[in-house]
């Protein structure tokens, strides 16, 4: 049935509802009246009296009262005669015939979407086609996994997609399920750790580190696990450890390993802050970088350091490095901010506070 045909039928029904009482000839006064209520009340008194619920004197008093109300009501009824007014009825009919449909259409058209057909779920194709957006495919797989949560392969397929979509928390859960139902492996552990790191905004949390360690225990040569373990060491301030992990990786790796440049970058990054003996490759990589890239890299590191200190503020060396970094970057305000944050963070420990103040004095910032 056509949508507009249905609308027309409904409108006709609505108009009819208004016209029907107007068109009826024998529109008699058919309502109830107050007088009838009082007459019923009088009858009720008789029944109560007969049933012994009230005494005779009380019944008499009640009858007098109600009788008075009955008279008043009857008077009022006589005041109001019925007067048909055909003119007004005609106006009302026109309002119903013309105004009602117009108003309905005028309100509906800007709000409704008459061109849009229904999309009940059952009628929609469940097969994936190329035109469907990725979100829909993911939703389908998720719906499938909701029903079959033990499908390890499904979780393994879904998890990297979720990570790529930026849904890191979901990716973490997906990798966990993949490990539980699809079997443990160093790759999956490392991927889980990576997702955890991404969910924490790039910080290798203790939880993530534990996953990388597990992966490395399963396969000592797992590149991803080793790289992130190095990153964890760097974020903890153990740059020497980081450098040695990455150097070992490069030494063991085949020459054409795709992650080589990444690790080299990382090494050069460590080299910039502590200036250890850099391998030739790293130096070359750092030299190849243009000014903007290098600045971005430095800024990224400083931010990561700040995030880590916010989580764990015990590291006096870390605070000093942060303050120094800000001063080198010419951001005195931030340096001062970091200084006060640092004092707050170590305020409970006299030994560390002293160490911090010493360090700050050396930096030339007002101690």
């Amino acid at each position, binding site marked *: 049935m056509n949508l507009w045909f*249905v*609308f027309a039928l*409904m*409108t006709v*029904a*609505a108009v009819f*509802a*208004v016209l029907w*009482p*107007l068109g*009826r000839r024998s*529109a008699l006064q*058919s*309502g*109830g*009246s*107050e007088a*009838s*209520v*009082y007459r*019923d009340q009088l009858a*009720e008194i008789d029944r109560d009296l007969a*049933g*012994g*619920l*009230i*005494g005779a004197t*009380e019944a008499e*008093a*009640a009858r007098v*009262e*109600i009788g008075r109300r009955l008279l008043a*009501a009857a008077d009022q009824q006589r005041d*109001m*005669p019925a*007067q*048909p*007014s055909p003119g*007004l*009825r005609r106006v*009302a009919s026109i*309002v119903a015939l013309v105004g*009602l449909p117009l*108003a*309905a259409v005028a309100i*509906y058209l800007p*709000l*409704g*979407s008459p061109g*849009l*057909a*229904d*999309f*009940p*779920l*059952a009628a929609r194709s469940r097969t994936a086609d190329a035109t469907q957006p990725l979100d*829909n495919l993911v*939703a389908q797989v998720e*719906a499938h996994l*909701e029903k079959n949560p033990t499908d390890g392969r499904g979780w393994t397929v879904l998890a990297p997609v979720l990570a790529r979509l930026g849904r890191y928390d979901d990716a973490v859960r997906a990798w966990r399920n993949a490990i539980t139902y699809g079997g443990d492996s160093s790759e999956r552990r490392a991927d889980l750790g990576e997702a955890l790191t991404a969910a924490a905004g790039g910080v290798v949390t203790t939880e993530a580190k534990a996953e990388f360690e597990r992966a490395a225990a399963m396969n000592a040569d797992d590149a991803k696990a080793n790289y992130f373990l190095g990153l964890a060491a760097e974020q903890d301030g153990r740059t020497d450890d980081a450098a040695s992990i990455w150097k070992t990786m490069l030494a063991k790796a085949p020459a054409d390993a795709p992650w080589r440049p990444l690790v080299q970058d990382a090494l050069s990054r460590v080299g910039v802050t502590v200036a250890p003996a850099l391998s030739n490759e790293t130096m070359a990589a750092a030299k190849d970088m243009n000014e903007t890239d290098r600045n971005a890299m430095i800024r990224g590191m400083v931010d990561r350091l700040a995030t880590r200190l916010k989580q764990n503020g015990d590291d006096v060396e870390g605070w000093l490095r942060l303050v120094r970094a800000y001063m080198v970057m010419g951001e005195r305000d931030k340096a001062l901010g970091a200084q006060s944050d640092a004092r707050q963070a170590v305020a409970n420990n006299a030994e560390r506070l002293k160490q911090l103040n010493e360090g700050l004095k050396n930096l030339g910032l007002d101690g």
Partner: protein
Amino acid sequence: MIAETGHYALVLALALALIQSTVPLVGARRGDVALMNVARSTALAQLLFTGASFALLVALHVISDFSVVNVFENSHSLKPLIYKITGVWGNHEGSMLLWVSILALFGGLVAAFGNNLPLSLRAHVLAVQAWVASAFYLFILFTSNPFLRIANPPIEGRDLNPVLQDIGLAVHPPMLYLGYVGFSISFSFAVAALLEGRIDAAWARWVRPWTLVAWIFLTLGIAMGSYWAYYELGWGGWWFWDPVENASLMPWLAGTALLHSAVVMEKRNALKVWTVLLSILTFSLSLLGTFLVRSGVLTSVHAFATDPARGVFILLILCIFIGGSLSLYAWRASSLKQGGLFAPISREGALVLNNLFLTAACATVFIGTLYPLALEVLTGDKISVGAPFFNLTFAPLFVPLMLAVPFGPLLAWKRGDLYGAAQRLTAAGIAALVAIAVLWAWTRGGATLAPLAIGLAVFVIAGALTDLAERTGLFRLPLAVSFRRAQGLPRSAWGSAFAHAGVGVALIGVVCETTWNSEYIATMKPDQVAKVAGYELKLDGISQRQGPNFREMIAQFSVSRDGRPLQVMTPSKRSFTTRGMSTTEAALLTRGVSQLYISLGEASADGGIAVRIYHKPLVLLIWFGPVLMAFGGLLSLSDRRLRVGAPKPAKAARALQAAE
């Protein structure tokens, strides 16, 4: 086509409501019967279209048509069918549609069954009803339209708030709305009376069934909501003095007052102006409740969505209706004729006292609820007014009210005999004193106030029974005569006795639960045993299970008492993937009217789990009380007879008994 048809039906309902709100009024002014009758047919047609619109929205949720924004945002294809249906009103748009559907339902009922009303009164009532309806149709269509579409529908919906995925959602909102919206009828009657400029005892007789229906549903709705919060929110409380709860309590208090003052009006033609005011206030408080819950002023489980445009719109509706009706009242009330007179000590006087306490209690709740909001708006300070405030203000108002409740029905109309009533209540008083003494001896050194409060509750219950005994002449007359009189007793008398007893029963539950509640909160490991109030609960183990759209962690407890095994309890924690939320499903073990309650907390890394175990003595009475009250209301509603209050004549010989 389903969605668009539903949308258009709603638009037609608005168009009909606009006609219904004007044409009958003109007809009533001119005395034209046909124009007045338009109210009736349009009200029925409006019900048809709104009902169709609601049914179509339900259909959309059932078939999971995610091209409708409302379905996409609040449904999920894997949800069980019952939650697909209840989810319709588990969100802002859908619940507003339910609201107007019920409004249209009441309008339709008045149109269909209002044959006993004078034509002009019916025309006025339906027209006022249509004003309210028009305002809410506009609100729905322009700010919270449930039929808006998405051109490229997503494949899966966002699911319903997991806390709401419970059978409670099927019962609590419809009941509460039937109550809230039901009071719109007494409001319409009041405004109609003010417009017509006359009011008398017959008016109260016509309004009575509607007020009663609304009150019954509101009572059950509030009780149901309280029980739902008790088992779903997971910490065993049943009333939090949360502003949203208060929003439903206020119309209930005002509605209870209205119910009583309308009795005086129907039987004695007195308190007319006051009854009209109460009708207006009750529905105004219902509207206020809707505003508080729907505008996003408050954030709670009930605030599904917050959007300032909606808040402003509802505030506007609120101002127009409350302000308009109160102005009309101020302008016209003086033209209403005053009714009958009565002595201060009389049934009328007792009901006035009841009204005073109920409205004062309502006012304290009102202040406690709105003061923090007002303060925040004016000064930006956030304060919270919680249980201590309400316990200190609400309780002192309720204690004298409860003391007075048994006296009311024993006093005669017009002029009563307080001493005589007190004499007849001697037995009830003795019962109360015995209860206090026994409890004191039994719980020596415990709470002092609790036995007193229970004594008060016993007094109320015994007082209700005394009333019945007096009316039937039990113990005074032969048993056969009493039995015959009991049969002849109007059902409304039984009704009020049940309702009053219900108040006492609920009070016993409240006092016992709050005073003698015992709890055990700890982290338990499998095979560990917790001892609470004489019960031993052993944690057998923790297991995982997959539900239709959630994963569930279930803990299994075997409960025993004195070494005898009783039952296995399985509280659980559900986590819903789509919304990333979890809910606690408390396990309840009912023994008599007391309950054991277990709810789970977080699981710890070493295999243990945090549990909260409560033993709540007589807790179920808290909800049996309201059910009893509603049952009393139902009895009274089923009494189709007219109510006459026979006055006690000034110089009568000793009357046989209190008159009905």
